[in-house]
C-alpha cells in the first residue's frame, strides 16, 4: 500500500473532524455501553453490576412491548409511509395539473413541529369533542366512538396512523430519483405499447429501487428512535401498549436510573443497527441504472 502523495494535507484536514467525531460520538457511544453495566443514580460512585440491567430489562413487560412497538414503527414507516411516498412521487413525476403546488402541500408538514402535529391529532382523537368521534356520531356510528388513545387495541394504530400521512420528506427524495430517469425509456416503452402502470412497474420502480432503499433505511431509523408523538399523545400508555424504547429510556432517566437507561440505549443502538443492516441486505441489489447502462 502506498500513501497518497498529499497524505499530510489530507490528514491535517481530517484531524479536526476526526477529533470531534471521536469526542462527541465514538466516546459517548462507548460510554453508553460502559454505563449499561453499572448501577448509578447520578450521585455517588457507580457500582459494576455486569449484565444485571439487561437481565432486568428482559423480564420487564414494558421493555418487551417497547421492542415490539419499535419494530412495528420501523416496519410501518419503512414500508407503508415510504410506499405511500413512492406512489405519490410517481404520480407527481407525471406532472399532473398543479403538481408543483401539490408537491409543496405534501412537503409542508415536514417543516412543522412534531409537537404541533401531535397536538393537532390529539384534538382529532380525544374522546370528548374530538373530531373523529364527532364525525362518527354525526353519521350515526355512535357505537364506534371511543377513547382512541386510551384503548388497548386502537392506541398504537392511532399513534402510528397520524405519522404515516406525512410523506413529504420521502416523497421529495423519491421524486428526485423518478425525475432523473431518462425520458427516452418511457418513450420507447410507449412505442412498444406499455401501459402507464406497466411503465411504472417495469421502468420507474427498478430505476428508483436504490433511492427507495435509502428512503426506507431513513424511515426505519426514524421508526427505531421514535419518541415525540407517542410521548405527547399517550406517554406510552395505556399500560405500555404504545411505549417505545425511547419512552422507556426517558422514564428511566427521569427516575435517575442511569444504568438501566444506558442499557436501553445500548439495546436501541444494537437493534437499530441490526434491523437496518438486515433490510439493506434484503432489499439492496445491483443498481438498476447499472443494468441499463450495460
Amino acid at each position, binding site marked *: 500500500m502506498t500513501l497518497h502523495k498529499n497524505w499530510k494535507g489530507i490528514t491535517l484536514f481530517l484531524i479536526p473532524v476526526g477529533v470531534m467525531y471521536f469526542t462527541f460520538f465514538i466516546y459517548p457511544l462507548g460510554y453508553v455501553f460502559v454505563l449499561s453495566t453499572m448501577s448509578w443514580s447520578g450521585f455517588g460512585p457507580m457500582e459494576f453490576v455486569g449484565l444485571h440491567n439487561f437481565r432486568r430489562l428482559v423480564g420487564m413487560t414494558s421493555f418487551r412491548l417497547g421492542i415490539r412497538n419499535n419494530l412495528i414503527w420501523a416496519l410501518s414507516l419503512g414500508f407503508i409511509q415510504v410506499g405511500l411516498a413512492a406512489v405519490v412521487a410517481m404520480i407527481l413525476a407525471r406532472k399532473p395539473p398543479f403538481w408543483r403546488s401539490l408537491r409543496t402541500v405534501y412537503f409542508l408538514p415536514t417543516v412543522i413541529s412534531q409537537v404541533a402535529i401531535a397536538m393537532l391529532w390529539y384534538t382529532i382523537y380525544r374522546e370528548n369533542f374530538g373530531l373523529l368521534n364527532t364525525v362518527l356520531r354525526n353519521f350515526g356510528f355512535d357505537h364506534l366512538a371511543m377513547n382512541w388513545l*386510551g384503548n388497548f387495541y386502537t392506541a398504537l394504530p392511532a399513534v402510528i396512523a397520524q405519522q404515516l400521512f406525512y410523506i413529504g420528506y420521502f416523497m421529495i427524495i423519491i421524486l428526485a430519483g423518478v425525475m432523473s430517469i431518462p425520458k427516452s425509456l418511457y418513450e420507447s416503452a410507449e412505442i412498444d405499447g406499455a401501459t402507464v402502470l406497466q411503465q411504472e412497474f417495469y421502468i420507474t420502480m427498478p430505476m428508483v429501487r436504490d433511492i427507495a432503499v435509502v428512503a426506507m433505511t431513513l424511515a426505519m431509523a426514524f421508526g427505531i428512535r421514535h419518541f415525540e408523538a407517542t410521548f405527547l399523545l399517550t406517554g406510552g400508555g395505556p*399500560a*405500555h401498549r404504545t411505549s417505545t424504547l425511547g419512552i422507556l429510556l426517558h422514564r428511566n432517566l427521569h427516575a435517575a436510573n442511569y444504568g438501566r437507561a444506558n442499557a436501553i440505549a445500548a439495546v436501541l443502538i444494537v437493534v437499530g443497527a441490526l434491523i437496518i443492516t438486515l433490510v439493506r441486505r434484503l432489499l439492496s441489489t445491483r443498481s438498476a441504472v447499472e443494468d441499463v447502462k450495460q
Partner: protein
Amino acid sequence: MARRVFVLFLIAAFAFPVIGVFAGGAAEEEAIVLQFPTFWVGTDSKAVPVEELVSEFNQMHEGEIRVQIEPTPDTDGYRQTINTRLAAGDLPDLFIFQPDPTTMQYYEAEDVLMDFADELQDGWGDRFQGSQMEAATVDGMVKSIPYEIGVTPIWYNTRLFDQAGIDEFPRTFGEFWEAAEALKDAGITPTSQMTGGANAWTSMLWYSHIIGSIGGPDAWDRPLDHPQYEQAAEILLQLYSDGNTTGDAVGGDADVSGSHYLAQRTAIFSNGPWYIGRVAGDAPEVHQATQLAPAPAVEGGEHGHQVTFALSNLAAAHTDDPARREAVVKFMQWMTEPDNVAMITEEAGSLFAINYEIDPSIDPLLSEFVRVQNEAPFTLTDMERAFPVAVVQEFGGAIEAMVAGGASPAEFVEILKDAARD
C-alpha cells in the same frame, strides 16, 4: 503659626470623616448579617409577602440582625445549588430546604445543618402541625423547619350535588357509591380521574386518601405485600367503572381531569390550593360552588385525614457562634408566626405546616383549605413521596392495565411490586 493652624485644620478635616467611617463601620459590624438565598422572589407569588416579612424583621432588629435576601429565581438551579452546597458542607446562613430522600440524608452529617430541636421544645414547636413536625424530625433532630406544604383534599361541586339531591359529602364509601348513583341519574359524571401524566396525579391522590383510610397515619410504612394496597386498588377500580368517571380518564392528563371539573361535567375532584386561581379565573361559578371534604372512609377505616406533603422547609447552616444561632432562631420564629404565615397565605395562596386561620372573606375556598387542614385528625403524604420514582411512574400504567386491560387489583399491586424491585 498660621502654617501650624493650617496643618491642624487639615488633619482635623481628614480625621473626622475617617473616624466617622470607622465608627459607622463598627456599628454596622455589630449587626449579624444573615444571607438568605431564596427563589421566593421576582414573579413568585410569595415574593412580596416574604420580602415584607424580612423587611419588617430587619426593622425590628435594626443594628442587631440583618437578613439579606439573595434572589435566585430559578427553582431548579436553586435546588441543585443547595444540594451541591449540602454535599460540600458549605451552606448559606438561611435557605429553603426541599425535603427529599437526597437532602434528608444530610440530617446525619455533623456540623452541616443547624438542629432546632431544643428551641422547638420550648413552646415554639406547639404552633406546628404534629405530622409535619414528625416528618421533619429524624432521630430527635429537627434540622429543617416544616414550612410550606401541599394539601390535597376532595373538592366537590355543591351545585351539582344539589341537582342530584345530595345534601352533604359522603362520609363512607358506602354512602359515596349511593351519591355516585344519584349523580349519574342526574346526568352528571361523579368523579374526575386520570391515568396519564408523570404520576396519574388525580387518581394517585385518591389512592393515597384511600390508603390513609385503611392504614392510618403510618400506612405508607407497610410494604407492598400488605393487603391494604389491593383493597385500595379495588376501590380505585370501582371509581373507574360503571360510569363513575369520564371515558377519557384512561390516558387523560391533569388537563383532562381538571377541565371536566371546571366544565361541571364531573362533580368531584382532588387537587391542591394552587388550583384555586385556575378555578376562580376560568370557572367562577365552580369556584363559588366548590367545597372541600376529607375522602370517604372505607368500612371500619379512618375518616377526616388529609393527604399533605412538604414543599419547602426552612433550614440554616450549622454555627458554633451562640449569637448567630440566636439570630437564626429569631428569624425562623418570626417566619413561622401564625399571623405571618396567614399573611402569606392570604396574599399568595400557599399553605403552611402551622396551625393558623385566615380571613374567610379573602377567598372562601382558600379558607376551606385551612379548615380541612386544621380539622384533619392526621395527615399522610401522597404516594409520590412514599415510593421510588419507578413505582410512581408505573402507577398510571397499572391502573390502565386494570381498567382497560382487565388486570385484577392483585395484578395491579404486582405491577407496582415489580417496579419497586431494585
